[in-house]
């Protein structure tokens, strides 16, 4: 029934008896080395090379690159028709195959995920990734993780992009990035459950206790807190951040916030988990189109934010030439139009509006009406009056300020 006396005392003695200077060995290899080891495993950063690339950086990066006939594309969900008509056209026309993966759900985790490989100079397995302007965009750029783009390889972009999309605030002269699309962060709600919503203040209304969704991205969250208090995020100071954080904490402690969401907020809205939520303009349009729901999206009276998601090439990409060709492909008017017809986000190509009307003429009935409605939608081709209501993200002069911003808002999401 039993194995008596385990561990066997003789074995224990055998394992612990002093023989060949075990203690010396231990002292040498362990204790004294420990101090050295602790100090030796620092995590290397990549420093700040420069906000704008050196003049020869472009030539240096692109020299000796060859086409390989394949692109690995990392994008957010709800950013392309699942049938991928544009990519099929691209492959048919150029022979370059594309593997499209919807692997990006939120910016901070994405940066944290690929940062170690990029630091080590290894490929992240993607040649093209879509990055939102904001804290992580700056981190990618300042770490030297983004390839400087060669404008001469992007004739359609140069010709067709609206002027605003060729000189973005977060990337002057668009050295590292080409916009995929812009979007508006506003409020989505379910009209079956709540009356018409028009103000940010509605997100703080105790009537909707436990049914309000906010975003877990600290910048998105902070922006709404600030705008609700009448603060322009782009001009905000650290005092404003504290005020906004307190206001957001109140929203949370009053039990109004159901949860802080990444891209999954749209699913929570669909399941009835939340009735009102912070939302990205095009998602609501796509959700309604694909699931037959009737959710509404509004730019709040106090304002919404305008952001841009950008195509970028990681510095370690294996197929940069194929990737830049694909980037440019999306700036051909017909492709820009067909993409906007599906995703319903702000289109960076003005000529696409006319193209969408032409596309609509080829369709009939509901399809035609839907495309025409999008071509006239202020969310796809915003009029100046809409732009005037929109705010931009805060930008940070120093890394310390950015950390302070994070530390101010992080605890709201995490606790």
């Amino acid at each position: 029934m039993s194995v008596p006396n385990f561990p066997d005392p003789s074995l224990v003695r055998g394992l612990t008896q002093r023989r060949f200077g075990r203690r010396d060995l231990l002292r040498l290899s362990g204790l004294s080395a420990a101090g050295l080891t602790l100090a030796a495993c620092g995590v290397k950063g990549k420093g700040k090379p420069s906000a704008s690339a050196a003049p020869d950086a472009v030539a240096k990066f692109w020299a000796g690159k060859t086409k390989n006939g394949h692109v690995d594309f990392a994008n957010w969900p709800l950013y392309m028709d699942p049938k991928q008509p544009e990519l099929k056209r691209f492959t048919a026309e150029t022979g370059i195959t594309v593997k499209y993966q919807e692997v990006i759900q939120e910016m901070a985790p994405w940066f944290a995920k690929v940062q170690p490989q990029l630091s080590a100079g290894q490929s992240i397995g993607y040649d093209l990734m879509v990055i939102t302007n904001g804290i992580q965009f700056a981190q990618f750029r300042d770490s030297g993780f983004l390839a400087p783009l060669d404008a001469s390889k992007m004739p359609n972009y140069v010709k067709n992009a609206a002027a605003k999309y060729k000189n973005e605030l977060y990337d002057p002269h668009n050295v590292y990035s080409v916009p995929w699309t812009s979007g508006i962060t506003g409020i989505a709600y379910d009209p079956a459950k709540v009356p018409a919503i028009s103000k940010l203040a509605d997100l703080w209304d105790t009537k909707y206790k436990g049914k309000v969704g906010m975003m877990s991205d600290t910048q998105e969250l902070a922006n709404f807190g600030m705008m609700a208090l009448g603060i322009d995020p782009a001009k905000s100071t650290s005092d404003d951040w504290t005020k906004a954080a307190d206001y957001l904490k109140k929203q949370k402690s009053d039990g109004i916030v159901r949860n802080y969401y990444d891209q999954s907020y749209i699913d929570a809205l669909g399941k009835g988990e939340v009735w009102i939520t912070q939302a990205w303009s095009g998602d609501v349009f796509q959700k309604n189109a694909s699931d037959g729901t009737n959710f509404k999206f509004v730019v709040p009276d106090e304002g919404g934010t305008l952001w841009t998601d950008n195509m970028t090439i990681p510095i370690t990409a294996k197929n940069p030439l194929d990737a830049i060709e694909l980037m440019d492909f999306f700036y051909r008017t017909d492709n820009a139009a067909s993409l906007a017809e599906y995703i319903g986000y702000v289109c960076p190509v003005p000529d696409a509006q006319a193209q969408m009307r032409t596309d609509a003429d080829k369709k009939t009935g509901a399809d035609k009406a839907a495309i025409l409605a999008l071509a006239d939608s202020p969310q796809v081709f915003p009029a100046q009056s809409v732009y005037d209501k929109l705010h931009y993200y805060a930008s940070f002069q120093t890394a310390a300020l950015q950390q302070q911003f994070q530390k101010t808002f992080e605890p709201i999401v995490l606790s």
Partner: protein
Amino acid sequence: MNRVKRQIAPYLLVLPGGLWLLLFFAIPMVTMLSLSLQQGDVVNGYVFTGHWQTYVDALSNYESQLVRSLIYGVVSTVILIVLAFPVAYWIAFYGGKRKSTYLFLLLLPFFVSFVLRTISWRQILTDDGPVLHPLKALGLLPENVHILGTAPAVIAGLVYNFLPFMVLPVYVALERIDPRVVEAARDLYADPATAFRRVILPLSLPGVFAGVLMTFVPVSSDYVNSAVLGSSSTTMIGQVIQAQYLANSDYPTASALSFVLMAVLLIGVFAYARALGTEDVMKVAAR
């Protein structure tokens, strides 16, 4: 020659395990300890400065999540013992020839990934899902009642996911009890309740201890259940560590929190082992 061999043999025997521990335990621990004492940011790199203040800040910022995790851990473990003991008892003493079938049934859900199973619960319990929707439609519950996003939902998920890890060790301990010992107790005029209390229960405690080890530690540091079934008011320390590592790239805070969690869990487990009497545990476990 022979003597030398005999002297080296024990070292050779511990070599594979020792190397394993060195590679996958000691080195990561040292790296993490170093990380927790570094300062900097992810773009410019982290440098070792011996900044122990990180521990103080991390603890004061995330104390509530740590306490919450321990409460969830203790509550879940107690519920697990209460649920698992009768199941294990029944299989061990009344399972008869079908013992292995019952054990197989117990393990059957493990053929599906636990993340998938947890997400399924989310689908079932969601606000307009198959459980709540009919009740709301009948007017039995107000519209804004929800199960998801509450502490009971998270604890239920934890209990559900870790149940077999408690049942199996308890079962093994009970199964080992020699029926003749129980018979002897009865022969000495112990009624069934006394026999259970004085004989079966003490003999099963090492199994319960093993079960607690296998559930309390992972339950307290779990982050999946809280992330899937919980909300911002049920955040557990595992989620904070995960977010600091994998979202905010704040490695020092994440490492410091990991160490604190480890220390707290170790203290808890040792305290429990002491209360139960470790020696007995070792003895019975060795049988």
